């Protein structure tokens, strides 16, 4: 099930993908279009892509999640299947105010998909569960009042 971006954005991303296939770089006019549509988020997103900040995490089950290392050093968890990011800007500008379509982290993910240059990380199924739960459930208590704590083993 794909959640669709507005047609303009879809078109822009597919033009970028075609350009990258031909010449391995994004032409200036497409970069300008990106800036026109997304404003300053576009520059920040491109910067994140340049710094290889996007990691696609997958497990043997085939389930995937993205993590983006933000400019502040904090890592955000993103679900590309449905345009979700754990960053405060997403919660504010996209969800609450409906100002923006995407935060810079989600835009960076889409650009890195086009450029095919995100890092890849394989984890176990259990570790992927922990990653999916980690960010969002810190403040939620369970039915018996307990909260979650995690111990992810490094590779």
């Amino acid at each position, binding site marked *: *099930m*794909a*959640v669709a971006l507005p047609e303009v954005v879809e078109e822009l991303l597919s033009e970028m993908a075609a350009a990258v296939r031909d010449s391995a770089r994004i032409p200036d006019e497409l970069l300008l279009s990106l800036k026109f549509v997304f404003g300053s988020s576009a520059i920040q997103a491109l910067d994140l892509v340049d710094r290889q900040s996007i990691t696609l995490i997958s*497990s043997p*089950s*085939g*389930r995937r999640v993205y993590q983006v290392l933000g400019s502040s050093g904090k890592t955000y968890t993103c*679900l590309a*299947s*449905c*345009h*979700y990011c*754990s960053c405060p800007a997403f*919660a504010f500008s996209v*969800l*609450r105010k*409906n100002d923006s379509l995407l935060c810079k982290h989600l835009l960076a993910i889409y650009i890195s998909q086009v450029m095919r240059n995100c890092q890849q990380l394989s984890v176990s*199924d*259990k570790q*992927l*569960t922990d990653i*999916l*739960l980690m*960010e*969002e*459930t810190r*403040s*939620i*208590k*369970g*039915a018996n009042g307990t909260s*979650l704590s995690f111990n992810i083993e490094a590779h």
Partner: protein
Amino acid sequence: MAETLRRVLSGGNAAGTGEDTTAESGPPVLLLGAQGSGKTSLMFATALEAAGEGCGPVLFLTRRPLQRLPRSTRAAREPLRLQKVRFQYPPSTLELLQLLASTHEVPGPAPCLLLLDGLEEYLAEDPGTQEAAYLAALLLDTAAYFSHRLGSNRSCGLMVALETQVEADGADAPQLTLLQRTYMVQGENQLPQRVI
């Protein structure tokens, strides 16, 4: 509404349609209605319909077990279909998130339809905007993962039922707006009109 449901259900079985089978099951369905408007009955009927031939199991999530089978339909009298509906009862938002986040750890065939009845009971825990958004997103992500598991010409539909107040209630509005933004298709069950 019927057309929407047909679109959600047909995503699970593209055989014989003769159409381009690119596994787009259509947008998720958010079913809104006041208490007693028939949402659970409709969800249950949808689950049984989807559990028909050629489709995988159906996953039905709700906070409390159904006290009795909703209004019977022809399909409800076919026990084989009922056996393909897997009921799970996460008692809190946290347990629901844990369930959704760990579905990929569970072996076996992927469901062709994921239903959540009574979303308002989980939102009543007042989880906050970010957590409510994540719950909605994780439901979509779980359905997307099931679609991926089902393969290239099948996909998993998603249907969520939310009880709304009959009178407009300011306190509900932000969460409802959030869900509407996440889910693109809605059906409204209004008393006393019944769909089934």
